């Protein structure tokens, strides 16, 4: 710890550090933003297609590609967690303490922030042998809106990127989990939600252990 030296003398005598000409750094910018501030869907779709293109270079399997998209989303989740908690009103500014509050936070706050609406569903796995699995359901993921998956890559779901964001939020709040995206929409004629995606959240064993312990106490 002692190797962290306080930087005395301020800004002038640090040759490596560059400042913007107006002297404003990230610390001078406000963290709150207007409720209506939205980004252009077209520019997002363009950037996202580039990200998918970049991630699909030199891959060996579809899992590889999904893994890369997941990794791209992970730091966003970590950062989003603190940003959204910061924006909460002081009264409800609490860290998630159990799985349900955490998933609820993701379903409502994270989804609202990213996609302008809450997620369409939140379910617990009905299989009694898998109590550590939860599902967040989105009928029409925004990231997949302009993506058509080629026939030979039919298992691919680019919402793996969103799965990475969810994983980041879970990991950040000390609920380590594996999150994967799965397409469950049927490709039949007249199907209401062909792009329906389930985000499968599988929590680590230590989370389940702690959950049981806290539930008793």
């Amino acid at each position, binding site marked *: 710890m002692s190797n*962290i030296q306080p*930087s005395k003398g301020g800004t002038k005598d640090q040759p490596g550090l560059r400042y913007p000409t107006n002297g404003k750094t990230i*610390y001078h910018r406000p963290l709150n933003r207007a409720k209506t501030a939205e980004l252009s869907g077209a520019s997002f779709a363009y950037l996202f297609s580039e990200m998918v293109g970049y991630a699909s270079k030199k891959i060996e399997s579809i899992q590889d590609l999904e893994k890369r998209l997941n990794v791209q989303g992970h730091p966003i989740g970590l950062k989003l967690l603190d*940003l959204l908690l910061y924006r909460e009103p002081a009264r409800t500014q*609490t*860290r998630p*303490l159990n799985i349900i509050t955490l998933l609820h936070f993701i379903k409502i706050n994270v989804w609202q922030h990213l996609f302008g609406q809450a997620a369409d569903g939140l379910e617990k796995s009905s299989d009694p042998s898998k109590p550590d699995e939860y599902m967040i359901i989105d009928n029409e993921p925004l990231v997949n809106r302009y993506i058509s998956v080629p026939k030979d890559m039919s298992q691919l779901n680019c919402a793996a990127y969103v799965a990475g964001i969810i994983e980041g939020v879970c990991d950040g709040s000390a609920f380590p989990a594996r999150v994967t995206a799965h397409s469950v929409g049927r490709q039949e004629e007249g199907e209401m939600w062909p792009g329906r995606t389930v985000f499968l959240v599988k929590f680590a064993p230590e989370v389940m252990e*702690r959950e049981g312990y806290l539930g008793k106490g």
Partner: protein
Amino acid sequence: MSYYFAIVGTQDNPLFEYEFGTSKQGGDGQARFAEQARHMNQFIVHSSLDIIEEVQWGNGQMYLKCVDKFFNNYVSCFLTGGNVKFLLLHQPTNSAGLPGSVASSAASSPSAAAAAAAAVGSRSSTSIGANPTSPQTEEAVRSFMLEVYESWVKTLMSPFYRANMEVRSPVFRQRVAAAGRKYL
């Protein structure tokens, strides 16, 4: 009254540290730790991490108030959503409970010292330094922590910042110093 502030990451790794003194009641904002105590501070603060890990699951608040006490050192904690700990060690110069540790400092006013000696926790003392566990002190530390938290979230927003990286920004240090001057 001297303060030692540290930010500890999720791997119990130090990310930032800063020492300062009170600016209230004529204080000059300089920390007055003995040279030996400065090394001890790091140990005291880190030893409170075990307690925080227990407390953090009982209470969803970010500000966990005063979590640990080691002789005349009080440790307050603020836990962010991302499990990063802000730890503030405060060392009152005029503690009533420990006569041996009373250090005569030019910064502490005699009246506040007398009031604290008369009754710890009494409302007559407005010095936040004198009563480390009084509601006034808790509120002052809360305000300080919230201001640091704002700067911390801004640090996180930097696309070049990855989790558990040391914070070297001189602007961040200035912000922490300003919050310390304002509230403590």
